[in-house]
């Protein structure tokens, strides 16, 4: 517990109306303060740390997960493993994994990136596996009939058709990694989560609230921008097919 329950909250608790206005005003003042936009605890620095930790973890996770998922899906092997890795991944508490990584690897970015990478892998494996499995067998037969070799068929037929779901898996992972990276502050890491954790510890609720807004906006922006990338990467032929909305990535939430 970061502080006792009875210690003071906002000045006028219990009066929702004026209190809500007071919070918004003080948070706006905090965000507008130039002092919070510079230096080692400034928003640009914290945002850069957050993006760096998340970006590294998603990139390393993708390098590990995508070949596994695509390989398993292409060859149709170990389907249970590919599906169940998401179920098991969902069961792992991100907070516990972060703290264990901290106890093993100590201070610094290493434990954070290792924990976040571990959390990034399961949805990417499952969704890329499902993406490859769902490629219409008739299309694969047609490709073989046209003389495509195995690699050409994988690269030029199966992968383009699997792009929407593979990208949805990467987006699911990335959003969860950005969310979980906010917990890195609990193990003395950087990132925007610092404001939330420091604000709670210092009973500076303006800072805590402003940090929460920044984290929420970053998560939504990550989701929206990767959704945009997804739309750009979907081959035109598939977009014309109007793939139904049921082809969504497996729900995955760890933080």
């Amino acid at each position, binding site marked *: 517990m970061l502080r006792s329950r009875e210690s003071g909250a906002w000045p006028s*608790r219990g009066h929702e109306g004026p209190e809500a206005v007071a919070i918004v005003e003080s948070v706006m003042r905090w965000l507008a303060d130039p002092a919070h936009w510079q230096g080692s605890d400034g928003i640009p620095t914290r945002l850069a740390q957050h993006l760096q930790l998340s970006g590294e973890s998603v990139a390393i996770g993708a390098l590990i997960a995508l070949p596994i998922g695509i390989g398993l899906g292409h060859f149709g092997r170990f389907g249970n493993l590919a599906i169940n890795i998401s179920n098991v991944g969902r069961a792992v508490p991100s907070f516990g994994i972060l703290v264990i990584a901290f106890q093993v690897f100590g201070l610094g970015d290493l434990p954070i990136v290792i924990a976040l990478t571990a959390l990034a892998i399961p949805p990417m494996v499952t969704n890329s596996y499902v993406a490859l499995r769902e490629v219409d067998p008739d299309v694969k037969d047609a490709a073989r009939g046209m003389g495509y070799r195995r690699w050409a068929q994988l690269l030029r037929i199966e992968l383009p058709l699997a792009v929407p779901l593979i990208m949805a898996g990467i987006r699911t992972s990335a959003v969860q990694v950005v969310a979980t990276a906010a917990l890195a502050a609990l193990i003395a890491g950087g990132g925007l989560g610092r404001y939330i954790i420091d604000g709670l510890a210092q009973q500076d609720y303006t800072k805590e609230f402003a940090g*929460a807004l920044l984290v929420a906006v970053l998560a939504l922006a990550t989701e929206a921008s990767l959704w945009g990338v997804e739309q750009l990467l979907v081959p035109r032929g598939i977009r014309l097919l109007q793939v139904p909305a049921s082809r969504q990535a497996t729900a995955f939430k760890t933080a």
Partner: protein
Amino acid sequence: MAAPVFLDIVDPWVNWDWLSTHIPTVLAALGQHVTLTAIAVAGGLAISLPLGIAANRWTNLHLRPAELAVFGGFYTIPSIALFALLIPYTGLGTVTAEIPLIGYNVLILLRNILVGLDAVPRDVIDAADGMGYRPLARLLRIELPLALPAIFAGLRVATVSTIGIVTITAVIGLGGLGQLIYKGLIESFHTPLVVATVLSILLALVADVALAGVGRLAVPWSRGA
């Protein structure tokens, strides 16, 4: 070789002596974890079921992405941010913990309830109408039973995800097993950390298997299919 003294006192990953004397502490944390999870899943179901039934009955299939996007935005926001945004209004405690958890489960369950209800074949509904079912009876005795497999799939995902996220409520003074993870963090004491993480994973897996079993019992007609 004279090793520094502090290296002689190696903290083992699990100190069984501590564990054997702290079983009540662990059980209390586990109990809180189960309670917080049960409220979150039951609350999510209580909200998503009427919403799903209403959307299935009165809105067009083309609206599904838009309807789900409303809750999708909420689902995208990290729990720690929602807790922090709620603290000024609802303080530290159960209400602040449950609002985000219930909201996340509404998305997962609503999506699955709609998948299940939207997939009930038109022929089946026509047959039920022809047999004289009133709308409510048709819903309770035909449509919802047919949607049960999808609803149970949603309940499993919701329950397992919630068990993981509940640990994070340690930062607002709750946490269930997350309390022990937090204790392990601030005291650099491995045992509660490892025990709580392992128990949290086991709890999630047990809940998943149990719900899968109940789901199978609930739809006896699909067995062996």
